[in-house]
């Protein structure tokens, strides 16, 4: 068990790409931590830098009390699950799971023992003598996880562990992963570009962009108060409404309406999540319904209030296209972003 302490780390690839850029991050002992961000933002690189597969060009990486910046991957007491799982195709499931023990020259009996114990924990019993090629995606994923857990490391690193699974299996695996992590109390960092996954699983989230962390916080904080417009855009299953507005004498003017607001006068962007707008007869925003998209138990309604405004409404309140609708934001859920894009 160990915390991870990353200070001022940059990772530059030989071709000059600065994939991780002067990044600070502390992951607490036993925490389930998610790295979230769009494709190419450096998530995998950061994970590989923690694992030692990439060398940090600057800064230090600490795991527990140890500075591991210059240590090879095998000496860092980390275990990693790769996106393609990297199960060895010529070994059976049992041999794969026991591989970390084989490297340490544990006895054959101890290896078999570990494989059996792990397979029990991860519902792989009965598959031990198969080869990875004969497993389903979910079983491969659990085998990779079992192998990582068998390594008895201090830190578990997962690179998009669920992305190769279909939607249904992914939900199962998610629950499974969370339970496993709780039971083992293993410091875990996982990479994902699926924000629903990050919100559902993680104790804390770091949203990355271009090699830097844009926001770090609990899923609730990140969802409710995105620190800047990049995060606001990125987080949420429906895109946040970002409406141009102006602050003048204690009020903010946007989309043909006014709301009380503090702060210095000037141009702002008003951010309201579609989920935080509800239909009300005395609503401050009004417009004509232009699009209705079914999301299952809710619908995403687009109102034309001069600018398009998205509203999530429950199924029993679903309006028809062309209706006039009044909506108002939930108290305290209207966010103002300054001209630099940061939350004011």
């Amino acid at each position, binding site marked *: 068990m160990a915390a991870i302490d990353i200070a001022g780390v940059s990772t530059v690839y030989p071709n000059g790409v600065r994939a991780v850029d002067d990044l600070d991050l502390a992951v607490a002992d036993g925490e389930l931590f998610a790295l979230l961000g769009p494709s190419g933002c450096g998530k995998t690189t950061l994970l590989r830098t923690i*694992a030692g597969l990439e060398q940090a060009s600057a800064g230090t990486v600490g795991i527990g009390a140890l500075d591991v910046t210059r240590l090879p*991957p*095998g000496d860092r007491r980390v275990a*990693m699950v790769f996106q393609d799982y*990297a199960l060895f*195709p010529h070994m059976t499931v049992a041999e794969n799971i026991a*591989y970390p023990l*084989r*490297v340490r020259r544990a006895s054959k009996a101890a290896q078999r023992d570990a494989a059996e114990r792990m397979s029990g924990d991860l519902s792989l019993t009965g598959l031990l003598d198969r080869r990875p090629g004969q497993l389903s995606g979910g079983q491969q994923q659990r085998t990779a996880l079992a192998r990582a857990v068998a390594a008895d490391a201090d830190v578990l690193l997962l690179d998009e562990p669920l992305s190769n699974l279909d939607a249904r299996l992914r939900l199962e695996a998610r629950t499974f992963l969370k339970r496993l992590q709780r039971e083992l109390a293993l410091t875990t960092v996982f990479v994902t570009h699926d924000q629903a996954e990050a919100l559902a699983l993680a104790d804390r989230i770091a949203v990355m962009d271009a090699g830097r962390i844009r926001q770090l916080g609990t899923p609730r904080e990140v969802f409710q108060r995105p620190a800047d417009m990049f995060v606001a855009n990125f987080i949420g299953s429906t895109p946040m409404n970002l409406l141009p507005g102006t602050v003048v004498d204690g009020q903010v003017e946007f989309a043909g309406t006014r709301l009380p607001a503090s702060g210095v006068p000037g141009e702002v962007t008003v951010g309201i999540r579609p989920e935080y707008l509800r239909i009300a007869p005395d609503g401050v925003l009004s417009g004509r319904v232009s699009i209705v998209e079914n999301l299952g138990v809710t619908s995403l309604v687009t109102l034309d209030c001069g600018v398009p405004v998205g509203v999530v409404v429950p199924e029993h309140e679903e309006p028809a296209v062309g209706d006039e609708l009044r909506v108002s934001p939930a108290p305290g859920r209207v966010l103002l972003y300054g001209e630099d894009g940061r939350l004011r």
Partner: protein
Amino acid sequence: MTGFVLRRIGFYVVITVVLAFFAVPMLWLASAPFDARPGLGIRWPDWTLSNVRTTFEHPFALTSLVNSLILCAAATVVTTVLAALAAYSLSRVRIPGRDVLLYLLLLLSSVVTGTAAMVPIFVLMLQLGLINSQLGTALVIGGGMLPAAIFILKDFMDSVPRSYEESARVFGARPRQVLGHVVLPVARPGIATIVVWAFVNAWGNFLLPFLLLRDVGKQPAAVLLRTLNDEGGSANLHVIPVFSLLYSIPVVLLYLMVSKRYGFRFHGGIKS
């Protein structure tokens, strides 16, 4: 309609001729060794085993086959071990001009160990004192096969995902363990291909052993075959057929063994 039939007939005639072209030597190889009066044509034999006895009593026939085995085994080991290590490094380490280097080696190797380089190779080996040395000859044969072997194997190594090795490294495997536990086993079909290819190549190599091994007692089967004459100086047909049959057995066995275990994947340059 008649056009179609004629075309069919023509097709089968061509196929038959081509087939006969390949089948006749095979049939000869099957019948001549056991014929009391073997000739160069094929005919139904007067069955006998006396040719076999004659061949076994020939002073150099069996020795030369053993020599062939030793020579080819050594050349195959040299080629496979060096090619596997070189292909792995070339596949994993970025060196500027790596591909040019590979193509150049491949191109030169066919020149360097061929007829064109006969004299320089002879002089080189003479000065190294490796004339008449089986190991020396194996090194030259192996060296000649090396570039092509590296080229084919590098392709196999390229198709082994890096994440296998990285995964092993994260679990603490040292470089030697990564190679032994992961890379070599995964590349095994490729290595098997190279073993067969190198062995067959070396087995059929006439020029280099002929050039470098002066002592009849050290010459391999491919070279000895040329000297199997009777007292009158014409080809000894009581020995040659049996000898040829024995000569072809190891190669066929190796093919069968490897093909049973791995299947074949001859496709240098093309990814599966």
